[in-house]
C-alpha cells in the first residue's frame, strides 16, 4: 500500500533502477529487450517471438543478463513486430521467430547487433543511428505517448518510475479544486476526441453548475469508433495508469468519487491491461478510499461497448453505460448538469486524459508553449492507408500535413501520386494536395472543410475514387445511424442512394445539386453530432473533387477506375498471345477467341464481350502479358 509520498518515492527509486537501462541507455551489464505487444504487432505474431526469445535466452544461459519486456505500441506499426534492445537502442524491424536464435547468439551474447535485421533507416554504413534520429521519430514529440513502448504496461512500478501518480499526489495535497481548473484552463488543452472543447472549462462547469449534487461522475470515452483510428487503444495498451491517474485528478477537481471507462469490446488487449492496471492501483491504494491518506476516495469501473459507433457521442455513451440502447438525447441539459444517471458528469477522451498528469507536473505554461495560438500541445495521429510508415505519430499542433505524410510517414508507396488525406473519420473530410502545407490544428481543419476528429489520418493515392470514398463513409453512417432522428435515419440513406446512383453512372447533374442541398439540410437538422457531421465526407469531396463527380455523371467514367459499373475491361489484341488464361478464369464466359493473330504471336487473340462481362477483374489478374486493361 502506498499511503504517503515517501512510500511513492521509495517505489519510484527502486523501479528507476529497473528501467534505467532503457530510459537513460545506461550500460549496467544487463540488456533490456523490449517487444511491442500492441494489437498491431500482436497480430503479426509478437507473442510467439517473446516465447521463443525467452527459450533461446534460457538455452544460452543469459537469464540474469537479459530482461524481456512486453510493452505497448512503438508507433511504427508498418515495421512490426518491433523489438528494441537497450542500452544500445538497436531497432529490429519485422522481427520473426527464425531470426531470434541469431540475434540472441550474436547480439545478446556476443554484443554485436545483427545489422541485416535492423530497421534500415537506423543503419548508415558502419554506424547505427539512434531510433530518435530516424525520420519517423525525429519530428515527433511524445507527451500522451511518452510511456508507450518504454514501460511494461502491466507493471505499476514502472509507471511510478516515470513520475507516475506524482501529479495525483500534488493535486490532492497542495492544490484546491479551483487551482486544478485554472491550470487546465491556462494550459489550453482541448478535447482530443474531436470537438476540441476546452478541458478546463468542461471541468469548471461540472464543478460549479450544480452546487448540491449528492453524486457526480467522471467518464472516459474509449469507444474509439472512427475506422482507421487507434490512438486511444495504444494509450490504453501502452500506458493505462496515465488514464487512471488523470481520471482520479478529474474526480478530485469536480467532486466525484466514481468513474467509468467505456471501452470498445473490439480491443481485448486494451481491456485486459486496463483492468489489470485498475486492480494494481487498487492494491496499492492509489484507487479506493482515502487516497494518500486524504479525504479523497475514488473508484473506477470498466464498461464494454458492444459495437455501436453512435456510443462515441457523449449522451449516447452515458445512456449505454446506464444499460440502454445507446441513443443520443438533445443538449442542453449538458452532462455537466445532467449526465450519467442524471448526475453532473465530466466525460473526456483517453488522449485528453493522457495529457493531464504531465500538465499538472510540468505546469500550464509548458503545455501552452507547444502548438499554435488556439490549439495547444500535441496531437496523436493514426496514419494509415496508402503510406509507407503506417503507424502512430505524435506531433506538436501546427505541424503541416506534408511533414506528417512525407517526412514522418515516408511518403506514398509504389511511386503513386498523393490525392487526399482524410481526417476526422466519418465526420471529417478529405484534404486535397493544395492544402498540404497548412498547419494542422482544430480551427484550420474546420476552415478547409474537414475536422481534427479523434486523429485518424488516412492517406489516399491516385487509385482511390473520391466518390467511392464518400459512398463508403455514407454506407458506414447509414449502418451506424441509431435511427432516433429523421434527418439522419432517412437523410443519410437517401444520400447513400444518390451516391450509389452516381457511381453506377445513372445520375444527372440535377442529382448533384439535390445531394448538396440534402447535405446542408441534415447538417442543420440532425439531433446529435454524428448526424450533423455525416454529410462532411460528401461536402468536402464535392468541394475539392467535383470534377470526379462530374466525370461519373456526365462522361459515365470513373477516373480512378474503381466504380465497377463504369469500368470497361478490354483486351489489347496486339499484346495478347492467345494463351486463353483469361477465358479460363472468366466466370461469365464473356471471353472468346477472335481470328486475329497479332504480329509475332502464334495464336489468335481473345476479346471480351462487354454485355456478358461482370467486371470481376479475374481475367486481368490472370493475364501475365498485360494485355487486359480497364478504364
Amino acid at each position, binding site marked *: 500500500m502506498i499511503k504517503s509520498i515517501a512510500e511513492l518515492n521509495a517505489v519510484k527509486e527502486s523501479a528507476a533502477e529497473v528501467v534505467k537501462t532503457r530510459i537513460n541507455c545506461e550500460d549496467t551489464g544487463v540488456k533490456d529487450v523490449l517487444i511491442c505487444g500492441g*494489437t*498491431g504487432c500482436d*497480430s*503479426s505474431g509478437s507473442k510467439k517471438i517473446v516465447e521463443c526469445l525467452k527459450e533461446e535466452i534460457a538455452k544460452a544461459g543469459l537469464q540474469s543478463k537479459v530482461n524481456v519486456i512486453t510493452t505497448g505500441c512503438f508507433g511504427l*506499426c*508498418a515495421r*512490426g513486430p518491433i523489438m528494441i534492445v537497450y542500452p544500445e537502442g538497436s531497432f529490429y524491424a519485422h522481427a520473426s521467430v527464425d531470426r531470434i536464435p541469431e540475434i540472441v547468439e550474436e547480439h545478446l551474447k556476443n554484443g554485436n547487433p545483427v545489422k541485416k535485421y535492423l530497421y534500415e533507416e537506423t543503419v548508415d554504413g558502419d554506424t547505427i543511428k539512434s531510433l530518435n534520429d530516424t525520420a519517423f521519430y525525429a519530428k515527433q514529440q511524445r507527451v500522451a505517448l511518452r510511456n508507450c513502448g518504454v514501460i511494461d504496461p502491466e507493471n505499476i512500478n514502472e509507471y511510478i518510475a516515470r513520475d507516475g501518480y506524482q501529479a495525483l499526489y500534488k493535486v490532492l495535497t497542495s492544490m484546491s479544486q479551483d487551482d486544478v481548473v485554472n491550470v487546465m484552463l491556462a494550459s489550453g488543452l482541448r478535447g482530443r476526441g474531436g470537438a476540441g472543447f476546452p478541458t478546463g472549462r468542461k471541468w469548471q462547469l461540472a464543478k460549479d453548475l450544480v452546487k448540491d449534487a449528492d453524486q457526480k461522475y467522471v467518464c472516459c470515452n474509449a469507444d*474509439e*469508433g*472512427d*475506422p*482507421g*483510428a*487507434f490512438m486511444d*487503444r495504444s494509450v490504453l495498451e501502452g500506458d493505462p495508469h496515465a488514464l487512471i491517474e488523470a481520471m482520479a485528478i478529474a474526480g478530485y477537481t469536480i467532486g466525484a468519487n466514481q468513474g467509468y471507462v467505456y471501452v470498445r*469490446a*473490439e*480491443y481485448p488487449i486494451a481491456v485486459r491491461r486496463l483492468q489489470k492496471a485498475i486492480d494494481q492501483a487498487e492494491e496499492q491504494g492509489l484507487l479506493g478510499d482515502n487516497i494518500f491518506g486524504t479525504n479523497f476516495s475514488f473508484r473506477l469501473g470498466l*464498461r*464494454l*461497448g*458492444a*459495437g*455501436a*459507433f453512435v456510443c462515441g457521442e457523449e449522451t449516447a455513451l452515458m445512456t*449505454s*453505460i*446506464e*444499460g*440502454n*440502447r*445507446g*441513443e443520443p438525447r438533445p443538449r442542453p441539459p449538458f452532462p455537466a448538469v445532467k449526465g450519467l*444517471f442524471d448526475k453532473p458528469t465530466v466525460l473526456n477522451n483517453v488522449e485528453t486524459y493522457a495529457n493531464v498528469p504531465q500538465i499538472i507536473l510540468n505546469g500550464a505554461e509548458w503545455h501552452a508553449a507547444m502548438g499554435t495560438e488556439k490549439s495547444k500541445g500535441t496531437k496523436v495521429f*493514426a496514419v*494509415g*492507408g*496508402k503510406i509507407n510508415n*503506417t*503507424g502512430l505519430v505524435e506531433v506538436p499542433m501546427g505541424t503541416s500535413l506534408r511533414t506528417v505524410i512525407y517526412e514522418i510517414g515516408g511518403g506514398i508507396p509504389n511511386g503513386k501520386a498523393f490525392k487526399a488525406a*482524410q481526417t476526422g*473519420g466519418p465526420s471529417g473530410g478529405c484534404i486535397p494536395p493544395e492544402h498540404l502545407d497548412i498547419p494542422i490544428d482544430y480551427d484550420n481543419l474546420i476552415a478547409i472543410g474537414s475536422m481534427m476528429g479523434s486523429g*485518424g489520418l*488516412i492517406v*489516399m493515392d491516385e487509385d*482511390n475514387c473520391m466518390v467511392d*470514398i464518400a459512398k*463508403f*463513409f455514407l454506407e*458506414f453512417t447509414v449502418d451506424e445511424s*441509431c435511427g432516433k432522428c429523421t434527418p439522419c435515419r432517412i437523410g443519410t440513406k437517401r444520400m447513400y442512394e444518390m451516391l450509389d446512383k452516381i457511381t453506377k453512372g445513372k445520375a444527372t447533374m440535377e442529382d448533384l445539386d439535390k445531394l448538396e442541398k440534402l447535405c446542408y439540410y441534415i447538417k442543420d437538422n440532425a439531433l446529435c453530432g454524428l448526424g450533423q457531421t455525416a454529410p462532411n465526407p460528401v461536402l468536402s469531396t464535392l468541394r475539392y473533387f467535383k470534377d470526379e463527380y462530374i466525370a461519373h455523371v456526365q462522361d459515365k467514367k470513373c477516373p480512378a477506375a474503381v466504380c465497377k459499373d463504369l469500368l470497361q475491361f478490354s483486351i489489347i489484341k496486339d499484346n495478347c498471345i492467345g494463351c486463353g488464361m483469361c477465358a479460363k478464369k472468366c466466370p461469365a464466359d464473356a471471353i472468346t477467341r477472335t481470328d486475329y493473330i497479332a504480329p509475332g504471336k502464334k495464336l489468335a487473340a481473345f476479346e471480351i464481350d462487354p454485355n456478358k462481362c461482370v467486371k470481376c477483374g479475374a481475367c486481368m*489478374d490472370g493475364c501475365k502479358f498485360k494485355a487486359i486493361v480497364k478504364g
Partner: protein
Amino acid sequence: MAFKKCAVPFAGTAEQEAQLKAVIADHKDDRGALMPVLQKAQEIYGYLPIEVQTMIAEGMDIPLEKVYGVVTFYAQFSLNPKGKYRISVCLGTACYVKGSGDIFNKFSEILGIKGGEITPDGKFSLDACRCIGACGLAPVLTVNEDVYGNLTVDDVEKILAKYE
C-alpha cells in the same frame, strides 16, 4: 419489427443456465448492469436467442422488450449462432482503401452467404467488422482468434483451405 425465431433450435444446458444465473446474481447491485450481463451471456451461449433473453429479463426483472431492444441495437450481440470458424473482415477505412471490400465479396461469393450469415453446415460465418486497430497490417481479417494481414483477393481461398 416482427421477431424472427432462429432457424437453429435452442440447445442450452442446465450448466449454462446455472452460469447465467450466477452472472445475474453477481450484478444484482450494479446500476446499468444489463450490458455486462448480456456480454457474459453471449460468452456462455455463443449467442443470444430469445430463450436466453427471457431468462435475463426474468432474472433481472427487466421487461423482455427492453432486453430485446438493447440486444438488437448493438452490432456485437447476435441473435443467431456463429460458425465454428468465425470470419470477420475489417471494413475500416484503412483496410477499405487497400481493398478489403473485394476480399469480403470473395468470401461471400465462395461461401454463398452474406454478412451476418452462417453456412448451412455451421462451419463458417461471415461478418464485416469495423476497425480492429491493426491498420499497419491492412487489409486485415480474423478467423476466430487468428489474424491475417497484408492480404489480397488471392489469399481468400488459401485461408479457407486451412479450415477445411
